[in-house]
Every structure is written in structure tokens, then in C-alpha cells.
């Protein structure tokens, strides 16, 4: 069932319709191919369908249309095969779990076979520790998840997703509980990993400035439909923000990037 994926495989979403129990949340969505190494941020108001889209891409609920990774048809892959290519980091964090950070990350790796050669026990530990150190919680590896702050648990959650080294990484608000330092650290890390390994990163964010600064592409959604899709400076415009978020904003692009000032509600 599993097809080999070459390094240059794009993620294609065509006519994707999905929702919950008869209620359509994302309606016939088609996006330009997402290329290996790209960081794509999904933006939009509450209930725009961002999480639903991410979950459908993760294979967590039923969708019609086409989602292809290279030649592989992701929508028809069984969960175990799907998980070789795609990893999803949900917004909710584990509660009341008596596992250490290291155990949780190793658990993520051992849950089902990942792409490539099977790893030895030693290699699994090393790989888990590499990831834990890169997200900046190496000193907490032997700490219980229960004893961590919300932000630390979010970093541990990110490490669980990263350790599987997926072709497509789906992150649902990965920095919502983090302080400023770690917000930037995570964005930098995710982009560096995308560049290094050709991983496609699709994430839901709320902070426009952070999304503009660290994404290659912005997909702006509203009520399950595509509003704009393109490089940050093209996708985030005063008009688009007024349409989607009902806010008055000034947007200015210069050599330093995009400057967004939100002035008032409309």
C-alpha cells in the first residue's frame, strides 16, 4: 500500500470537503501545491475551518476530494500508512499523564512504524533526546509531564510530533502557550527543519506578525473557504483583514518585512 516518496513530492489539496456529521466546515477547498521545505500558515477567524482542515489532512476525520503527497493518495491510506508520512500535533495537551518527557517522545516514536529503517533502542533514545534538546527542554527530559508548565508541555508535545520526522508536519497552534522567547525559538526551529529535510509544515496560527515573519506562504480562510493564498506580503492586506477579521488595519511592507498595525474593530 505504501508508496515510496521521493524528496521532491508536493502536497496537493484539491476540492477538499470535510466537516462533522453532515455539517460542512471546509467546502471544496483547492490550494496551490505545497512544496517540500515550505512553511505554510493557516490564518482566519474562529470557526474558519482551520483545525478541521488540519485534522482532515491528518486523516482524523472523513473528507472527500483529493489530498495527494506526491503520488500517494493520503485520503485512502490506512491510518498506519498515513502516519508514516504525516504527523499531527493537536492543540490539546496531555492531561494527568504519569510519563516523563523522554518517555512520551520515545512513545511517539514507538507507537507505529515510521518511514525508513527500524531503529535500535539506543538510536530511538538518541533521536528522542536530539529533538527534546532542539526544542529547548533538554534539561526537562527526565521530568514528568505532570510537573511541567503549560508552555513546557506544549514544547514536549511539539517534540513528540517532530521525532517522527514526517514528510508533512501539521501543527495546531503550536505556540499558543509559549512566552515570546520560545515562540520565536519554535518558529525558527520549524523553519530550519523544513529547510534541512524538505518537510512540508502546515500550521494554524493566530498571531499575524509571527505568521508573516516566519511563513513562506499564508493561507487565509474564512467560513471554510479560501480568501487569499500567497507569500505573506500578498496574502495579508488591509482589505483582506477587513474582510476576514472585521478590523481596520494598516499593513506596510519594507526591507524588514511586513508591519501590521491593528487599529480598531469594524
Amino acid at each position, binding site marked *: 500500500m505504501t508508496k515510496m516518496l521521493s524528496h521532491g513530492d508536493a502536497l496537493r489539496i484539491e476540492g477538499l470537503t470535510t466537516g462533522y456529521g453532515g455539517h460542512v466546515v471546509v467546502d471544496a477547498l483547492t490550494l496551490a501545491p505545497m512544496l517540500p521545505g515550505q512553511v505554510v500558515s493557516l490564518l482566519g477567524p474562529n470557526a474558519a475551518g482551520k483545525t478541521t482542515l488540519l485534522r482532515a489532512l491528518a486523516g482524523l476525520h472523513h473528507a472527500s476530494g483529493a489530498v495527494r503527497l506526491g503520488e500517494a493518495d493520503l485520503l485512502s491510506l490506512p491510518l498506519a500508512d498515513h502516519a508514516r508520512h504525516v504527523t499531527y500535533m493537536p492543540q490539546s495537551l496531555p492531561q494527568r499523564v504519569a510519563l516523563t518527557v523522554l518517555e512520551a517522545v520515545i*512513545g511517539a516514536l514507538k*507507537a507505529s512504524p515510521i518511514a525508513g529503517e527500524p531503529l535500535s533502542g539506543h538510536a530511538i533514545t538518541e533521536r528522542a533526546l536530539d529533538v527534546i534538546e532542539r526544542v529547548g527542554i533538554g534539561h526537562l527530559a527526565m521530568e514528568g509531564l505532570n510537573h511541567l508548565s503549560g508552555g513546557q508541555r506544549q514544547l514536549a508535545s511539539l517534540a513528540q510530533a517532530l521525532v517522527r520526522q514526517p514528510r508533512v508536519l501539521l501543527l495546531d497552534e503550536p505556540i499558543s502557550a509559549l512566552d515570546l522567547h520560545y515562540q520565536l525559538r519554535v518558529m525558527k526551529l520549524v523553519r530550519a527543519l523544513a529547510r534541512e529535510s524538505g518537510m512540508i509544515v502546515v500550521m494554524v496560527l493566530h498571531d499575524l506578525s509571527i505568521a508573516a515573519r516566519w511563513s513562506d506562504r499564508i493561507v487565509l480562510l474564512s467560513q471554510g473557504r479560501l480568501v487569499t493564498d500567497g507569500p505573506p506580503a500578498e496574502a495579508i492586506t488591509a482589505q483582506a483583514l477587513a474582510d476576514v477579521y472585521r478590523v481596520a488595519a494598516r499593513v506596510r511592507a519594507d526591507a524588514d518585512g511586513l508591519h501590521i498595525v491593528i487599529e480598531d474593530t469594524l
Partner: protein
Amino acid sequence: MAMDQAITREGTISAYHRMTRRRVLILSVIGLLSLLVFAADISTGPSNLPLAQVWAGLFDPASLTMPQLTIIREVRLPYALMAILVGAALSLAGAEMQTILNNPLASPFTLGVSSAASFGAALAIVLGISVPFLPTDWMVPINAFICAFASVLLLEFLARSRAAGVEGVVLFGIALVFTFNALVALIQFVASQEALSQLVFWSMGALNRATWSNLGILALVMLVVTPFSMRAAHAMTALRLGEDRARSFGIDVARLRFASLLRISALAATSVAFVGTIGFIGLVGPHIARLMLGEDHRFLLPASMLTGAFIMSVASVGSKILVPGVLLPVGIVTSMIGVPVFLVLILRKPERV
């Protein structure tokens, strides 16, 4: 979230290996303690046969009288082995149930699975109602299994529907306990005098129905079930990180749940069929194991079994020595141990499990 430079990678790796070694050590210690209590269990009883004589009876039968040998072979040994097996079975069922339903209060006893099983068993014992063409030895356990499985399917359906939270499932479980207890009472009401006395003692949970053929059936069920539980250990550990996450890691959670519920039913039903409803072992065993070893299920599941076996053996010894000269139903003793623990679990802050 300041970086603590004092903790090196080598330090972390050696701490991880230390933790693993410590867990193996703890497992061995509980195993050893269980063996010791087992030895105490076969050396206590109304008939005055101390350990030395029991030992002699096992390895040098000629040195004892025939009645003494009968006591050892037909009473002491099967009762003590039954305590070990039932404790391990119920505790494993409880550990899986707590993970699968994501509910720290779940156990075969607290959520009504044991009550359902005892209803099924009572049907067979008193009214002789069962699946046709079954050997007599299997009638009671199969009946218990069918009812237990029906009750876990109901529980799982409720746990997955969005209407019921963790508390809802517990309340529903309590409703199951009451319902099936009432049905068992109804059967008792119509039962003959002889069947009734058998049923009453058994419904309190007692080891006096332990026979070698019952032991064989329970041992067989455990031999079949345990490898499947251990094979699912990684998946269950990942499930503790959240259902969405586990599925995104490639685990078919629906299938994992269904298989686990089958195992839970088989374990709980076989135990209940032979010793009646034993309370709280399935709740207390896994919690103690979790406190000592955490939730890596490769350790948690065997530790739960050993802890359950240990507590059940202690309860069995207690049932013989608490009131001198009287053999208490062992279910009364496990409840005396279990109720305080159950209350502590309910009353403590939800964040700290």
C-alpha cells in the same frame, strides 16, 4: 523556562537507564513479595498445618496423613493459587480499563462489569440458563463473559459519546452496578434454598469455589490474554498522550479499544465466575503500580498484575486470621482495603493523578 546547563545529555541518558533498572528492580521486589505472601497463604487456615508441613506435603507426601494431604491439595493450594490469579486478572483488567476509558476511577468492579458478570453467572448457577451445548465447567464463565462484554460495550459507547464526561461514565457504571445487583437479588428471590446459600456466599466474593479445573480455565484465559495485552502496551502508552495524537501516530484507536474491552471482559468474567465479585482489586492494583512505575505500559501492565496478585493474597491471608477460627469471604477484606483508597482517589485534586 531558563535553560539549566547543569543537566548534560550523558546525565539524562544515565538517569533514564537508572530509571529503567529501578523499574525492573521494583517489579522483581513485588514479585518476590507476592511469593512470600503466597507462602504465608498456603500455611494459614483453620486446620493447623504450618508451612513446614505444607512443604512436606508438596514434596514428600508420604510423611503426612491422608486428610492432611487432602487439605493441602484440595483447599490450601487451590485457594492460594486462585487468589494470585484472580488478583492479577482483575488488576490487569483495571489497568487496561483506566487507560482505554481515560478514567482513573475505572475498574471492573466500580463500573459494573463485575456485577454484570455475576448476573450472567447467577443465571447459570441458579436457573441453569446458558448457551446450549456447553460443557458444565464452562457454562458459568461463558455466561459471565457475555454479560460482562455487553456491559463494557455500553460503557464504551457512553465514554465516546460527547454527552458524557469522565464523571458521566462513572455515574453510568454505578447505575449498572445497581441494575445488575437488583437482577441478581431477583434471581436469589426465586432460587431454591440450596442454590441461595451458595449464591450468597459467592456474591460476597470468596475463594472456596476454587477447584483445579476452575484454576485451569482462569490460567488458560490469562495465558491467552496477557500476550495480547503486552503487545498493545506501546499503543496504550501512546493513547495516554491523547486520542487524536495516538491516531496521528498511526494507532487504530477504535480497534485497540475493542480488543482491550474483549480482554477486560474475559478477565473480569472468568474471575467473577469462580470467586464472585471481588471489589477494588482492579482499582487499587493499577494505581499503586502507576505510582511506583509510571505509565509506560510495558511496565505498568505487569506491575499491575503483580500488585493485584499481592493484594489479593494479603486479603486471602487476612480473611483467615482477622477473625480467629472464621473464614471471612475474601471480598469483604478487599473492600475494607479498597474503599479508603477509592475515596482518596475521588477526593484528591484532579490535576494530580
